[in-house]
């Protein structure tokens, strides 16, 4: 990935992170920590990989995406809005009673959302179904999904993992947002899902471990997955929960808590500062 492309993705990711803060702040509830954690996976997928059409969200040959960790809807909505599926101004209606932007994504209301999720463990199974349909129909679309590391504690994830390997779904690439934290604390204290990579290898998956905030590494993993035949790929992304907001980083308390006005102002100021630095670098490169 050339430097300018990497900088552009960082810029987009920072804009998405600002919207995550604004969504959760205006809703006075929601999940900022995990949303900030998986933002760079979203950015790479929607701005450097996925074949989607914002004017025709239900296009039959599009690549599919399932947010198995549905509570990170703020990051998904911000990504889809910045991509152009719906107006960015609507992000401020998140979680409000007349809004189409539910607390967890609903495919029947939101342009660009391919599956309704929210109940952990089910999204990856639906992604398996979409990938199986692609095989049945000899279509070359690809299916992507993001899971949480805490989500791996759901037994259904392993049923889905078994099925994806059994049916050789090499058109399926999933990502684990491996930030090590869940609502009640460290994943290793609550119910240890480790070793994560080894478990998916044992289940018959191709596994790639990357820095989940490095767009080039994420993109390389996506490309590598396309060359693997007969196996689904799991990209284990080492991430920082609350990434790029200093007081939220690595704090499980920010899993499902909204910032107050002062905290929102500080978060936005930090992200604006980062955005300015990225734009300055882009200006130098261009």
């Amino acid at each position, binding site marked *: 990935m050339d430097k300018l492309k990497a900088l552009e993705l960082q810029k987009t990711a920072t804009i998405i992170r600002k919207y995550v803060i604004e969504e959760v702040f205006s809703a006075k509830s929601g999940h900022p920590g995990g949303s900030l954690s998986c933002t760079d996976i979203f950015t790479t997928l929607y701005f450097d990989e996925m074949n989607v059409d914002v004017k025709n969200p239900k296009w*039959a040959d599009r690549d599919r995406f399932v947010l198995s960790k549905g509570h990170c809807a703020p990051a998904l909505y911000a990504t889809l809005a910045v991509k152009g599926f719906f107006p960015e101004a609507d992000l401020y209606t998140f979680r409000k009673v007349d809004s189409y932007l539910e607390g967890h994504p*609903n495919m*029947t209301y939101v342009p660009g959302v391919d599956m*309704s999720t929210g109940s952990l*463990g089910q999204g990856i199974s639906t992604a*398996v179904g979409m990938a*199986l349909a692609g095989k049945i129909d000899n279509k070359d679309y690809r299916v992507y999904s993001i899971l949480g590391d805490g989500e791996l504690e759901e037994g259904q994830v392993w049923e889905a993992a078994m099925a994806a390997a059994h049916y050789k779904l090499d058109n399926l690439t999933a990502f684990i947002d491996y930030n090590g934290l869940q609502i009640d604390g460290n994943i290793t204290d609550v119910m240890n899902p480790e070793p994560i990579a080894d478990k998916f290898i044992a289940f018959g998956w191709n596994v790639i471990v990357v820095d989940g905030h490095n767009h080039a590494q994420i993109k390389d993993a996506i490309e590598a997955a396309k060359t693997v035949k007969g196996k689904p790929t799991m990209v284990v992304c080492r991430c920082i929960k609350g990434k790029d907001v200093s007081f939220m980083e690595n704090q499980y308390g920010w899993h499902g808590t909204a910032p107050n006005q002062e905290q929102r102002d500080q978060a936005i100021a930090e992200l604006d500062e980062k955005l300015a630095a990225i734009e300055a670098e882009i200006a130098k490169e261009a």
Partner: protein
Amino acid sequence: MGKVATREAYGAALAQYGADTNIIVLDADLSKSTKTDTFRKVFPERHFNMGIAEANMMSVAAGLATTGKVVFASTFAMFASERACEQIRNSICYPKLNVKIGATHAGLTVGEDGASHQCVEDLAVMRALPNMVVLSPCDEVETNLAIKAAIDHDGPVYIRLGRLAVEAVHDAETFKFELGKGVQIKEGNDLTIVATGLMVQESLKAAELLAAKGINARVIDMHTIKPIDKDILAKASKETGFIVTVEEHNVTGGLGGAVCEAICDTAPCKVLRIGVEEKYGKSGTPAALLEKYGLTAQAICDKITAAYKGE
């Protein structure tokens, strides 16, 4: 005419209507019992065994349906409606995806496998889900047409099917199936028996026993539990003044509950609910179980006679 289990009719119907390449069938290691193997023999490329993993199967079915497939997901009623209940709710019904759940081995007449496999709560559980249609056919002809109706309906459908071979009620040449419409199969004005599944056969026989006692019972085959036919029930309430529901299901929340809900606002009358009375099943032959749980024609007749005379 020989007896045929509704699960047999289900497998045959899948094979009959399965030429539509949009139809996909999933099973959870029970395809010889659920009879989806009848479909597999004809269309092996569109039958997928998902292993003993019902929760995953339901969500995979949802994912397939997002691409325009008509997906049948089959297992025993027990494991479909209750083990995978939340997957049916969140992956299938909430987004209103086109998944049909072929739930076999419902009720006590599973027989010797016993209580762990005898699902007597599925109608109540599935009926509670918005967007769900719930079908409970009584014989081969009705099952065939129920499957056709399920394919034609855009959205989730739960189809309750039995293991036991049962007698024919309907004539293939003349029977018309309309989703959401009950079928009056015997006239009568003293009371109305509303039955579903294999209790339709028992109720017809019970009506004959009642006739011998001078009680003229109307009999309605209620093959659609949701949406329930309010019109036929209101008419029965007004014309006969007494409704008896008969189901191979717990008396809570199933057909009896649906009938009471349907008439309570606009056409209330006395209702006797006959079914499994807040108990789990047990091992035994189907006939012995129906006897033990009071679901034979004679037992139905006796309960109705006592209630009718007590009026």
